[in-house]
Every structure is written in C-alpha cells, then in structure tokens.
C-alpha cells in the first residue's frame, strides 16, 4: 500500500469474491452497472448515432435509435467545413505542449513542496490551490490584455501558457500526493550506491511516479483538448483549435446537428483511444499517491 503502482493490479481481484456463489453474487451488481452504463452512455450514444444518420433524420419527431441507412456523409460534410485537420493539429500541439511542460514544471514544484522543508511552504501550497478558485470567465479581459502586452495573442505559446495556469495547480497537488508516498529510504539507498541526488531521483523515484504522471497528463490532456473560451478569445480564425472549429456549425440560421456530431465524434476519438491505452495505469495512478495520507 505504501509503494504505488505495485498493489493496485493485484488487489483488484478481491479474495472475498472467490467461491461457488460467484456467479450469483455478481448478477445484481452487473445489472446495476449496466443500468448506469446505459444511462450515462446515452448522450454518447446519441452523438455517435446522429453522426451516422442521414442529416434529415437527425431531428425526426419519432427518434430513430439506430441509423436505418448508416452514412459517412456527415463526416464528409464536417471535414469540408473550415480547416478541420489544421485545427486538430493545433489542438494536438497545444495539448501536447501543455501536458509536457505541465508535467515537468509541475513535477519540479511538487518535489519542492514535498521533499524540502522551507519557510513559506504551506503558503505556496495554499496559494497554488487558491489560484484555481478564480473564475476564469472573470479573467478574460485581464488575461487577454496581458497576453497582448507580451505579444502572445494568437500564438500557440500564449494558449499553452494560459492552459498551464489551470493544469499546473492540479499537477502540483496530485504529484505531491504521490511523492510523499515514496519512501525516502529508496532514494537514500541509491545515493549510498553512488548516485547523485538527481540521479537517485531519476532512477528510483521517477519510475515509481509513472502512474501519477500518467494520471495528471490525462487530466491536462482533457483540459487542453476541450477548452473553448480562451481558445476562442486568444486565437484568430487561422489558428483556431478544434473546439472552436466545432462552433462553425452554429449559425444564425440554425445549428447543423448531424455534421456537428460527426465532428465531435472525430474529436473525441483520439482522447478515448489514448485514454483506453493508459487507462489501467491511470486507475492505479490517481490514487496510489493520495490514498496514503
């Protein structure tokens, strides 16, 4: 329980569930979980379902629960609007940079607040949490003016910088939870073996931090990939990101539901795939740090 990452997988098969009554004992939970999956999955299903329906069926008063004649037409339509690939590319760049920089910078700060004793430590921790409380909507004008002053309007770097402000606090808080859980003895042992402090950290602590890093990176990815308000504000049309691109389907003459759903399905896909790949690590990661208290 104290060493992150090692326990999660093993314990996920609870010993108490062994034995003959197994099948019967799972029926009720299975049913409940299915009800949840169907309910929570409904909006998703509706998005994907609409994406594959002919556009004229989208608003049928008698809803069609399966596309009678599945079509890729909406996807074609969506891809023709504006610059889909360009905006996805920029979103990926922004998300990648936010995740990468957020992790490195956040990790350094997390190490500082969890492995060093210094005056002002508590203040820093509290401040990092407190800055998350500022409603971002209220900051639109000041942030825009600042970015303008430092020449970062309509720049990817400007957007990354902005996203870092809401990714970093979370990263610092979460990683701190992980680091305090890693026994210092491990580092010390490595140093006795001749490692420098940095070397010990890289070789011993970092691997154990992997789940935490994965967890925070997913969080940062989802944030940066899905953010709308600041992306709209900071970037010009030529440099818009994918969420802003989705706004193209909303005109004063109505919303194009079907292509919009196709577009958002395309947008959600990479995140889901990435997520599924690293999901096991996330599950182990998000808590192995925090659980220890």
């Amino acid at each position, binding site marked *: 329980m104290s060493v992150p990452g090692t326990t999660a997988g093993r314990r996920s098969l609870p010993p108490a569930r062994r034995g003959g009554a197994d099948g019967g004992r799972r029926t009720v939970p299975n049913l409940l979980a299915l009800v949840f999956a169907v309910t929570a999955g409904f909006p998703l299903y509706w998005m994907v379902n609409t994406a594959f329906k002919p*556009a*004229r069926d*989208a*608003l*049928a*008063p008698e809803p069609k629960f399966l596309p009678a004649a599945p079509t890729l037409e909406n996807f074609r339509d969506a891809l023709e609007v*504006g610059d889909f690939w360009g905006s996805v590319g920029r979103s990926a760049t922004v998300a990648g940079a936010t995740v990468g920089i957020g992790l490195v910078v956040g990790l350094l700060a997390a190490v500082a607040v969890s492995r060093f004793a210094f005056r002002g430590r508590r203040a820093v921790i509290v401040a990092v949490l407190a800055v998350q409380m500022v409603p971002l909507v209220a900051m*639109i*004008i000041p942030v*825009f*003016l600042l970015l*303008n002053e430092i020449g970062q*309007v309509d720049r990817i770097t400007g957007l990354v910088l902005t996203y870092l402000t809401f990714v970093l606090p979370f990263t610092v808080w979460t990683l701190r939870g992980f680091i305090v859980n890693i026994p210092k003895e491990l580092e010390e042992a490595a140093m006795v073996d001749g490692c420098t402090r940095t070397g010990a950290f890289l070789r011993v602590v970092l691997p154990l931090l992997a789940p935490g890093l994965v967890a925070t990176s997913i969080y940062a990815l989802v944030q940066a990939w899905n953010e709308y308000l600041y992306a*709209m*504000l900071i970037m*010009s*049309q*030529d440099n818009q990101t994918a969420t802003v691109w989705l*706004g*193209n389907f*909303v*005109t*004063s*003459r*109505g919303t194009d539901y079907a292509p919009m759903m196709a577009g958002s399905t395309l947008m959600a896909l990479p995140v889901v795939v990435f997520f599924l790949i690293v999901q096991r690590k996330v599950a182990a990661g998000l808590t192995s740090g925090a659980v220890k208290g």
Partner: protein
Amino acid sequence: MKRGLMAAVCVAAMTAGIAGCGADGGGEEAAAREITVWLTVDAQKNWPELVKQADQAFAARHKGVKVKHEYFEWTAKNQKLDAVLATDKVPDVVEMGNSETLGYLAKGAFAEIDPSRFENSEQWLDALRESVTWNGKLYGVPYYAGARTATWRTDIAEEVGVDEPPADWKELTAALDKIQKKKGDKFSAWYQPTRDWYTGMAFVKDAGGDIAELEGGKWTATLSTPESVKGLKNWKAVIDAYMHGDKNKDDADRYIVYGQGRSAMIYANSWEGATAADPKFDKTGGKLAENLESFALPGTKGGLMPNFIGGSDLVIPAKSDAKEMAADWIKGFTDTKAQRGLIEKGNLPNAKSLLAPLADDPETAAAARANENTWFVPMAPGWLQVEKKQVLQNMLNDIAVGKKSVEAAAKDADAQINAVINGG
C-alpha cells in the same frame, strides 16, 4: 461628457488620417500588407462566393495586400471585439448587427466613413443608415437587411376553405380561427415563440405605442402607456388563441419547429420558411416545400404590421491602421453586384433602389412590401444593454405564460429599461 469629447476628437483625428489614438498609425497605408475582415459565420456558410468576389475586386486595386478573414458566431463576436479593441491589433472591417452598433458609436469605437465612396449610398435603407449614424455623421456601411414576413401553408388554409392570402387583420384572424378549430389544440394556427420580441414590439408599434421615447435628451421607457399596453394585449390575444406550442422557447429554432408540421403559420425572417422546407427539416414529407406562401402581415388597424428591419452593417474600427483599404474592401462587398448576390440568398439589399424591383417578383414581393411600414429600436446609448439583458423577452414571456398581467409586466420592464437606456 469629457470622455465623449475625447472619443470624438480621437475619431476625428483618425478619420482625417492624421495619427492613431493609442495605436501608432505612422505611415499607415503604405505599411499595411494585410487587412483583417471579421464577418459572422453566415457569410462563410451561406455566401462565401460573395466574399471571394470582394477579395478579387480588392486584390485588383491593392496588389499584394492580403485579406485575412475571420468568421464568428454572433454570441462570441462582440466579446472578442471588446477585448481586441483595447489593443492596437484591431480588425479593419467588422460586421455588426444593426442593433449592436449604438454603444460602440457612442464611445467612438468606429471610424467615420465617407458615404460617397459607396454605391447606392443615397438610397440606403433608413433602418440601416440610422444604425450607423451618430450625431449626424456616418460610421459604417449597410451590408444587408432582413424583413419579416408571414408564411403559411396553403394546404392547411385550403382545408378550411381559404385560398387567398389574407388582405387584412380580420381575414387573417378569421382564417386562423377556422384552422385552429379544425386542427385542435395540439396544433398552432400561428406558431409564435413568445420570446420573439421583434413581433411583440411590432404589435406595440401597431397600436401606436413605443418602447421608449426621447424627451429633452433623455430616454424614457413607454411600454406602460395605454397605447403600448393595448398593443401587448393584442399580441397576447394572438398567443392565447393560436400559439399552442412551447411558450417558453425563443425563436432560435422556429424553423425547426415549423418543419415538424404542427403549425400553419409563422411570422419570421424571410429565410426561415424556406429553411423549414429543406428536406433536412421538413418532417411532413415535402408538404412545406409544395405549399408555403408568404405574405406581408396585415396590421390590426389596417395597413401592414410595422416590420422590424434587421440587418448588418460593416464598420471600420477607429484604431484600424488601414482604413482606406478597409473602405475599399467594403466597397467591393456592398456594390450592386454583391447586393444582387445577397438578394439571391434570401436577404434584402441595403438600398431602396435595389429593393423596389423585388416587389414585382412574387417570390420576394412579401419581403419587399414589408419595407413599407418599418420600425427600429430606440437609438439610445444604452439600448444594447436593454437587448442583452433580455428585458423585453422576459416581459413577453411573463405575459404569455400568465406569470404577470400585461400592465404589471410592462411597468416592470419600463423600470428595467429606464435603469440602463441612458447609460453608456
């Protein structure tokens, strides 16, 4: 007062091409190699070829100058504009709704233009011209307009023995009564979203009332005057009798609801009927496409219902460093050829001279006639706030669902309007 003066001086200095206010406009026209044009997504979706045409005309005159386009949703545009106007990297051309311009004009945000540069400027529609006029000067170019027309289904009208569009209010209500009776109360003889304040206020104007009046340099709301209340009651009678759809919706999806086939008539932007008849929205198996008929909505006291002329203007921010070129681009985007293109897309042109021939064409006659009797929002510095705060929408909704009496709702709305209408 001082601020207004400063803005005025600022604008004067800029239009004379002397120097920038806040922005450094040193050697503006020579240096700028690019102009930025902000339009709403409508242009991008519905008439991109006209934008291209304007670009080509512009390119011929300004070799090597790039035109950069940005398209915005209506809701997002002004928020970004507000922020950008605080910087020195402002767009050179911006599309503004004709009811959005006032607050900006009052604060000197836009540059004065010389109307003689633009085609048909003598003939510009009053509703659009007014929306870019401040203290007798012009600060923008009308782009296009949109009138409201009544559209109904002849198949349903014929079911009750009506085969002509109604000529006056009595004929209209007689027909609607019959339709309503025949179709039952799940059906709306006239689908009229209550929050559509353009229609609600048309009734007010029709009864001789008004939203607000200017007296001695100060605006006062007048919704609770006997005339206005009469208009609101006329409107309420229509809602009670013919509107059996969702009384809490706004008019954003009227064309979708109309396409569902549970209503006979709408009074809407001229494009809405056509869009509802699009197979994407027509859920009646093509009945809309075959049977839609438009006519100018009669007023309750004879003549026509006063029509709200909505539309867009093109303005040049005062801080733009390429005003000359911006004006040139606008020139190409609003010339007669471009206006013809806009007419084809179901809009009204920006000039009376171009509107007149439309009255002869049965397709466009109803919209063109609507221009005979028009109304516009009060030209008060705080009007935009009244609109953005949804004062009229909330009032109409309260009246329609019976939350408040007409008198009480009008009085409350007056108080809310008075609080902001002179602000700025």
